[in-house]
């Protein structure tokens, strides 16, 4: 006996969605005179079906005979329980708390850090990390038709390979757009990028070329 009335267990997700649409045309409260009761049942069952499809329950055969002993039932219950445990992911190891350093009373009295980092406090660690990753990836990218090496949010506009020194002019987009000049990877000049990006790019390349920063 199927636990579902409208949706068969063998349907795929797409088929079930199509069936639900078809049923909606038939049982929509505007069409059917049941105050929307059938449609509510269909919607509830569809959600139950979807949940069932995404997380199929583990079911083991119950003792079929009417005269099945409680022991038969118990083996079915134990079997189902072990099957469930086998399909569960292993528990995540709980991180051990960091060793408690003795803190002076004045430090202990400081207020806890804010839960949300404010935007003015600078880019979050992940944004900085992304910039670095994109910068290193852009260095390994072939230049495009404009001679720019682009990866993610970083564009290397200009590169000069001097003896023992590499000078790069960068444009960084994202939440904090800015222009940079780097000497061997170290930022030596930085300013925010505005809408006048074409003029700013030209100026940045001129500065990097003349080493005027």
């Amino acid at each position, binding site marked *: *006996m199927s636990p579902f009335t409208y949706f068969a267990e063998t349907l795929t997700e797409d088929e079930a969605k199509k069936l639900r649409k078809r049923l909606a045309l038939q049982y929509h409260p505007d069409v059917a005179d049941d105050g929307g009761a059938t449609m509510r049942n269909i919607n509830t069952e569809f959600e139950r079906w979807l949940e069932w499809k995404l997380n199929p329950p583990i079911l083991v055969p*119950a003792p079929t005979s009417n005269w099945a002993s*409680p*022991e038969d039932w118990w083996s079915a*219950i134990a079997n189902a*329980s072990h099957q469930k445990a086998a399909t*569960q992911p292993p528990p995540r190891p709980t991180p051990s708390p960091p060793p408690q350093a003795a803190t002076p009373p004045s430090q202990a009295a400081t207020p806890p850090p804010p839960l949300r980092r404010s935007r003015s406090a600078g880019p979050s660690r992940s944004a900085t990390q992304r910039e670095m990753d994109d910068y290193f990836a852009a260095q390994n990218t072939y230049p495009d038709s404009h001679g720019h090496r682009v990866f993610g949010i970083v564009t290397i506009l200009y590169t000069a390979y001097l003896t023992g020194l590499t000078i790069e002019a960068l444009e960084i987009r994202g939440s904090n757009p800015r222009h940079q000049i780097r000497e061997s990877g170290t930022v030596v000049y930085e300013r925010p990028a505005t809408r006048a990006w074409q003029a700013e790019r030209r100026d940045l390349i001129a500065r990097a070329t003349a080493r005027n920063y």
Partner: protein
Amino acid sequence: MTTEFTSIVPRPGDIVPGSVAAMARQNGGKVAPPEIIVLFDHSYSMDAKDARLLDGRTAMRYEAGCEQLALLQRRLPGKIAVLAFSSDVTVCPNGVPPAPTGTTNLYDALQKAKQADSGAVRFVLISDGLPDNANNALELARSFSGQIDAVLIGNHYEAEAQMAEDFMTALAAATGGTFMRDASGMRALADNVIKLLGVSDGTITTV
């Protein structure tokens, strides 16, 4: 017009809605893994007539326990398996323990429950007193990977109550479970067990 509510106590042999057997019927003859295994004490002391049914009538602890177990299974359908124990252990797929008889052989009940101790199931012990072999039971409980919560029911003399409470607390603590004393005369046992399990919208937190 007011309708008077009368408790219907399930009898041995009835199939309680939401029990393993009832759900197997609905699931086309398949058993879903239970999330809780209730170890229900049906020893002779459950014959004591000091409990209350939902409609307020005084009844045997056993009767009140059956009513509350039925309520629990109805609220968490298919998630509860019942294992009744006295001198012997009885599996109750229909959700109703047998009539009160014998002593409290918790050790055998735990041995039986251990067969289903996969780590994905929680155990709830509902008992009204000290078991026959407390130390062995405690020792066995320590080897469980799932947690055992203990619910003490019934009225006791002071000394006996303390001993029972100590044992149940130790048993729960041995597996990281929780001890609870049901002070409602079993009238709110199902509610208390649900609170103990931390069930919210039908989701049980397994260990």
